[in-house]
């Protein structure tokens, strides 16, 4: 089972956007971790810690068949992610492979949001979490103007 069409592209764009922000802020965390954390903050506010934990564990489980290395990643009780940085560092030589786990995980999480909340509400939440990012790319499933 692969991610919902369009989610991967959206996840990739979010990671790219965060990578751009990371360069200026000299953040030590990977773009995938920062995207995940922003989603955790944004979603956690209304679904609660337990609600976000449930979504994150489901997304992680769905991601593992696509990226087996994610078996080493865990969702902590507070919803934070443990181990993603480590597996990304293991793929120092192949940067594309290193980012794959993060992209798939974020895509799965966004896919769950889309399933439960629908496209319009998911986009509203993303716009709130990334006020500077553009989500109106006509080519993206979740990128059309809501």
């Amino acid at each position, binding site marked *: 089972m692969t991610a919902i069409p369009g989610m991967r592209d959206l996840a990739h764009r979010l990671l790219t956007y965060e990578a751009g922000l990371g360069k200026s802020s000299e953040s030590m965390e990977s773009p995938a971790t920062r995207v995940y954390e922003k989603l955790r903050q944004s979603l956690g*506010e209304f679904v*609660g*810690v337990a*609600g976000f934990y449930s979504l994150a564990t489901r997304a992680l489980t769905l991601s593992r068949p696509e990226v087996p290395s994610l078996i080493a990643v865990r969702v902590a009780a507070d919803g934070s992610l443990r181990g993603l940085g480590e597996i990304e560092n293991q793929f120092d030589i192949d940067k594309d492979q290193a980012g794959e786990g993060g992209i798939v995980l974020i895509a799965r999480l966004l896919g769950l949001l889309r399933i*439960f*909340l629908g496209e319009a*509400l998911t*986009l*509203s939440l993303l716009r709130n979490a990334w006020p500077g990012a553009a989500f109106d790319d006509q080519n993206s499933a979740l990128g059309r103007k809501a």
Partner: protein
Amino acid sequence: MSTQDKVKINKLPTGVPGLDEIVGGGLPEFSFNIIAGAPGSGKTTLAHQFVFANASSERPALYFTVLGESAIKMLRYQQQYTFFDPARLPGSIRFINLSQVVLEQNLGAVLEEITKEVEKTNPAVVVVDSFRTMVRKQESDMDLQSFIQRLALFLASWQATTFLIGEYAEDELRDNPIFTVADGLLWLRQTAERNSIVRKLQIVKLRGQDSVPGLHTFRITEAGVQAFSRTFGLTARKRNPPSDRRLSFGIAELDKMLGGGVREGDSVLVAGSSGTGKSVLATQFIAEGIRQGEPGIVAVFEERPQAYAERAASLGLDLETPQKDGKLTILYLRPLDLSVDETMHSILDAVQKIGAKRLVIDSLAGFEMALSPGFRADFRESLYRMIFALTGIGVTILSTVEVDESFTEFTFSTYSVSFLTDDIIRLRYVSIDGQLRKVMVVIKMRGGNHAKDIREYEITSKGVVILGKRLANYQGLISGIPVHSDRPDLTEAPSLDTGIEHKT
């Protein structure tokens, strides 16, 4: 103190069709309200409608969810309603989950969390859903009272209109400290009556507002909660003074029997057994109104509008053109599980939409049968309220009712609704000279004189046609089995009643 010195309480739209009228024009700004009721009664949906009607990016709404329905599922379901605009989240409407605080800490921590968010956001509306789940924790009554008191005080000071949503049973209404603090208490009920669910809401309490007392039917549709005021939203409208104007049936002889026609604003009952021409008479009444420039509504329950119009066409009456011109609406109402109030609101909406002056309800029996059994108990009361409201604004109503024919008695209506009517026209079969013929008589006219004559009539291709003079040579016509009398007919003109009412 003059009126100018008094504080003006702004009324906020509830976002619930029909509810503003029930609460007296809207909910008071900065009020502290409780929406109570059983699970599934529509509390959350009602609160969402209020939130979407009042939140803005400048003064957003804070929607605190506690234990109970998960926020993600709540949003999943709530966005199915047409009022739900996802683009307004989270800018104008923020959902904040307090489950963790409630589970791990105490009411003080909950208050602290709410306070923090309110100070940060400056909301116009605050909702705590479900408030009741917080209360079930082992807190003392004093803790709870203190919490409510402080919450109400804080939120009012911060100029927020607040809703606490809670699952409450009827017997919890008394001696509840929470209800004492609240400015408004909206109680939603749903009960199963036979095979139908009956939903009703009550404004148990609303400080500073002249709300409409009693139980009001409501329905949850794809548009959310819709309420139907017991007064049909017509309380604010002045009753027209009684009119002397007479409305014609388009049947000259019948108009004469009625002393010149039906008085404008009257409620007329046409009673008779099957096939006596009640619907034909009603159709002629509405068609004549349209001919005279008076828009009309026909509410039918036993045939579809197309069939109704076709039957009228067979009598030479064109009901198609006025429908296209917006002068006539034929409502086909087979609500099945609708309440009588909802059905009557449909009629009222149609009346107000085209400015109808004449309304035909064909028939009362069909109307009642179309209602779900649980609502039939309210039928006559609601009908009375609707007739009172509509005639008060000058609409003339003609209702038909089927009467079981008996050859031993002459009932005016088996329906016990004759008290609702100003005028009664009775149609019946009689056996004369080996034929089953039809006669009509005006039983009652509240507003004036009417003929006492019993007149024979026929239904022809031109509708109801009254034949000749009164049937003077028969005794016992109203029994249906008259006896021929040799007394000569001396009366030329219809004799008029003196206005004395008959017992109905």
